[in-house]
């Protein structure tokens, strides 16, 4: 019973069934990407997995533990979460912020030991933040902040990492670098990763396997090649794309200008009539 098992999970928020009978598995050391159009239920499914929202039906089992039976402290030792829009408390220093990751390992007096400090230091170094530990969080750039959040998650020392749209506020370079860092940490520390992803090209390039969600259901599950197709993106995103694959870049999703060809034809026609 290793890895993460999501079985028939449904979440109801208000009147709406936002997640509808989703089942999926993530093997240890695997990176699973959740994709799907806005409002498909990706974030809610991640919240259900991390225990932030109650389940209507189903269960989430990780390493043999049913997560709804665990307290916040035990859960935090099993999975670390990088939220989509992290709260940035005024004035907090980077070092203190990263040390918050040790919360579930501290005794009831909340004293950080030498080991706690060393683990935090290790995370800061792994993300290239060791020179920023005295800086204030609200003075960091977007890319540095996202790395600080990842460093905090890493400091939790949990075998599983849950990332909700980690690149959505980053530019193309910082987004790419963040994905590379996650990938390296995954192989160095043998982490299991599940992440919702907005950018389909990054999802295809970095994830071992993808699950596409639409209207609360998991509709496709498999390697990127079989999930990201021109047909599936047209059906579920309403997007016209070309999917190109090549040996040196893996897969690339290129959006097409809708009606471009028709417009071109019409322009030639008009020009001919003049």
């Amino acid at each position, binding site marked *: 019973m290793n890895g993460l098992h999501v079985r028939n999970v449904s979440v109801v*928020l208000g009147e709406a069934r936002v997640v509808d009978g989703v089942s999926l598995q993530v093997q240890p050391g695997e990176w699973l990407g959740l994709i799907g159009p806005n409002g498909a239920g990706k974030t809610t499914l991640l919240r259900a997995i*991390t*225990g*932030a*929202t*109650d389940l209507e039906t189903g269960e989430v089992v990780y390493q043999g533990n049913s997560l709804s039976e665990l*307290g*916040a*402290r035990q*859960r*935090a*030792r099993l*999975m*670390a*979460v990088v*939220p989509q829009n*992290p*709260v940035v*408390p*005024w*004035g*907090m*220093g*980077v*070092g*203190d912020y*990263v*040390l*918050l*990751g040790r*919360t*579930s390992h*501290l005794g*009831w*007096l*909340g004293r*950080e030991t*030498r080991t706690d*400090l*060393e683990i*935090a*230091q*290790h995370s*800061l170094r792994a993300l290239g933040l*060791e020179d920023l*530990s*005295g800086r204030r969080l609200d003075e960091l750039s977007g890319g540095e902040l996202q790395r600080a959040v990842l460093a905090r998650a890493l400091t*939790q020392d949990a075998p599983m990492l849950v990332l909700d749209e980690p690149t959505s506020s980053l530019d193309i370079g910082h987004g790419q670098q963040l994905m590379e860092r996650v990938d390296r940490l995954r192989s160095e520390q043998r982490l299991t990763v599940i992440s919702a992803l907005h950018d389909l090209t990054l999802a295809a390039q970095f994830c071992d396997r993808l699950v596409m969600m639409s209207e609360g259901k998991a509709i496709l599950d498999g390697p990127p090649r079989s999930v990201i197709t021109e047909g599936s993106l047209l059906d579920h995103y309403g997007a016209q794309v070309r999917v190109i694959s090549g040996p040196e870049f893996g897969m690339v999703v290129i959006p097409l200008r809708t009606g471009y060809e028709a417009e071109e034809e019409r322009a030639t026609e008009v020009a001919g009539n003049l």
Partner: protein
Amino acid sequence: MSVLHSLPVPVQRSRVGPRRLALALALGVTVLGAALLVGPAGLDTGEVMAAMLDRLPLVEVESSLTEREMTILWEIRLPRAVMGALVGATLASAGAAYQGVFRNPLADPYLLGVAAGAGLGATVAILMRARGFPSMPLAPLAFVGAVLGVALSYGLSRTRGKERRSATTLVLAGVAVASFLTAVQTFLQLTNVTTLREVYSWILGRLVTVGWGDLYAVLPYMMVSWLVLLVFRRALDVMAVGDDEAATLGLSPRMVRLIVVAAATLGAAAAVSASGLIAFVGIIVPHTVRLLAGWSYRVIIPLSLVMGGVFLTGADLVARTVVSPAELPIGVVTAFLGGPFFLMVLRTSGDLE
């Protein structure tokens, strides 16, 4: 790991630091000393110092104070100064804790109905005294009223569904409960005009009639409150990232809020029952500490404890000297001095956002 062990550990984190703590404690001793030296009885400074030194263990100093003067020093001035320090420490730390747990800079220890409940309890006690129960004790009734006020706010906030049970619901329930209890109190007060003056003077706050007995009655509650808040000061730092993230870091935000609110309420209720409603201390002291020493509750809680004591003992000193031998209500002094002082700190040290 062996390589890691040999490295220095330069992760920077927030701590009170021995220098800051020593400075604050030195200020505390100075103010306490001043409170013992100054008063309408005009005791000789040198003799008072000698008498104080004589009380220290292993120190023998001759003091020529008369027995009456010794009584003024040890039974009137000292308990009053100590009570000022205890009430100030309790209100300031409780205010800091409320601000942390509700993530609201305007939260004060009276937020959830402590003041209104205590006010109602005190009014009932004063009325009963006037109606043939002359020995009705005021402080316990004020204490019970304060705790009931908060319990009512907390209970009402929990009647909503689990998903919507947030810090905001609790604060709004507190506002409603406080308005209701204040209305009841005002009604009782207006139907018994003869006691109006007494109720009003209680509401403004005072440390006048304090003896050691009053002090011992409230000290245990205050100490429990301080201890819990000191233990939870790191949890308050975790709460700064919001309920959702605090939960993923391994904390139960609702549990932390319940425990911290209960502890701060216990302290605030004890303080209010002993000294009436002293405004402003719970907001001004923690914010001044925050502006001068940083965002972390690991720093704010201990320094607020000490500086709250310093502030209130100092304010009481002013209250009983500026119009001596008469006295100003201490609540007037805290607001009159605290307001401008706080604005000055705010202007010189930047933002609170």
